[in-house]
């Protein structure tokens, strides 16, 4: 069978197509998007024998099921979860052969939030501005998966995977986010800045691909005026009027009008993508390198 496509049997709560996103268009109001746990997505691609920029599936808490129409190699990484082929348990975090017509089920996350499913050849939906990523803020890229949808697959590379298994960080029991202060820390009272880096917040269930929302002590502003809209970076910790910090993730708006008290180091954002609701969060101030 040469029909290179993937039928969606069970879309799950929210499964999207993601690659490395579309950075470079922020001045047009286009978010960067891309896999939230980028190292996990890259590992899944490596295990499936794909190039690092191939598009994968990103699930949210409840996994998904797909039926490839041709025989493929798949790999599931990110949030640990049970993986089965036609009901038979197979490995998570390792290459798995799935025959044409068999059903690959990626189960609910045991820990963490987002599992990544790479399929040999990559998900080959039409790119938009150089990326196949679904952007949930602006609606660019393919729609989130729905039951019965069919996704085209690319041609697998000749070369086989060099790795069979690879270590992966466990989803965090406590999320520690290293932050550098500013650019708008002076919009907050000195007490609020101390509170921000000394108290424990918790991941809010309202978190999504746009931002990791938190619950915890509200941060008081030192000034009441409005901040004119300004450019926002990945990892910016924006503080809306309710005073609780929001960490901007891949689908964040490119400009915003709430002050940014600090910016999370990019290396800590993959863990943020795997922190399930209720996970304690601490912001630790570090010096700029």
């Amino acid at each position, binding site marked *: 069978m040469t029909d290179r496509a993937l039928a969606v049997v069970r879309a799950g709560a929210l499964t999207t197509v993601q690659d490395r996103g579309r*950075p*470079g*268009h*922020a*001045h*047009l*109001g*286009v978010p960067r998007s891309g896999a939230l746990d980028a190292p996990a997505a890259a590992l899944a691609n490596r295990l499936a024998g794909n190039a690092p920029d191939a598009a994968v599936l990103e699930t949210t808490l409840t996994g998904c099921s797909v039926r490839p129409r041709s025989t493929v190699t798949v790999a599931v990484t990110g949030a640990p979860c049970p993986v089965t082929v036609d009901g038979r348990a197979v490995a998570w975090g390792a290459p798995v052969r799935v025959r044409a017509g068999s059903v690959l089920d990626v189960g609910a996350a045991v820990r963490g939030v987002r599992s990544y499913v790479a399929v040999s050849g990559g998900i080959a939906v039409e790119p*938009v*501005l150089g990326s196949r990523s679904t952007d949930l803020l*602006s*609606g*660019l890229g393919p729609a989130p998966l729905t039951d019965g949808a069919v996704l085209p697959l690319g041609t697998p590379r000749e070369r086989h995977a060099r790795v069979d298994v690879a270590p992966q960080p466990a989803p965090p029991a406590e999320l520690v986010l290293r932050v*550098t202060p*500013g*650019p708008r820390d002076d919009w907050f009272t000195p007490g609020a800045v101390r509170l921000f880096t000394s108290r424990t917040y918790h991941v809010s269930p309202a978190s999504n691909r746009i931002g990791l929302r938190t619950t915890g002590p509200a941060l008081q502003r030192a000034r009441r005026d409005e901040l*004119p*809209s*300004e*450019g*926002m*970076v990945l*990892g*910016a910790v924006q503080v809306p009027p309710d005073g609780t910090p929001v960490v901007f993730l891949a689908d964040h*708006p*490119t*400009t915003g009008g709430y002050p*940014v008290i600090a*910016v*999370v*180091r*990019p290396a800590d954002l993959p863990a943020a993508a795997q922190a399930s609701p209720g996970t304690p969060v601490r912001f630790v101030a570090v010096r*700029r*390198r």
Partner: protein
Amino acid sequence: MRVLPVGEDALLVEVGSGDEAQALHAELLRRRTEGSLPAGEIVPAARTVLLDGLSDPARLAAELTALAPPSAPPGAAETVEIPVRYDGPDLADVAAHWGVAEREVARVHADAEFRVAFCGFAPGFGYLTGLPSRYDVPRRPTPRTAVPAGSVALAGPYTGVYPRSSPGGWQLIGTTDLVLWDHARVPAALLSPGTRVRFVPVAATGPAA
């Protein structure tokens, strides 16, 4: 001009006015084009320009701090004309804010020369400046849940055109059939920062006219 570090590899350059921000943006783009400013993203906004994806932000910060703010944006090559039917549901409210007759709104708006100060909110949504500040208007007290694509709208000092249907609180003064954003087109965005824009009144058509 104030240069604020943002995380590990970005800088936020803050200036005194929107005009200065546009001039600074043009200057920074010029430097990137000539190869002296390696930046992944150059994002202008109301009073700032964000430089992201920098390899040596500390050195660039020192350079920029010593830079005299450019005075005026250079003449942009391109002018986009946007045909508009001035038939928006908020024309009367805008006329009241401006203290002019309703039919005067179109004349005032179409006489102004606009420039895209920055983009944001949605792909291809430009914040256009060009009206004198006495024509600033507040947002609607209650935002609409759906503003149709092509709506020409005002808020604060800005004019914007909705590239697609979305919720919005701006005052709607007209409609255009021009497609502001089409990701299959090159370039996808009709308006990008620095683009000059003129609104050209066209007669309303159809049975409602």
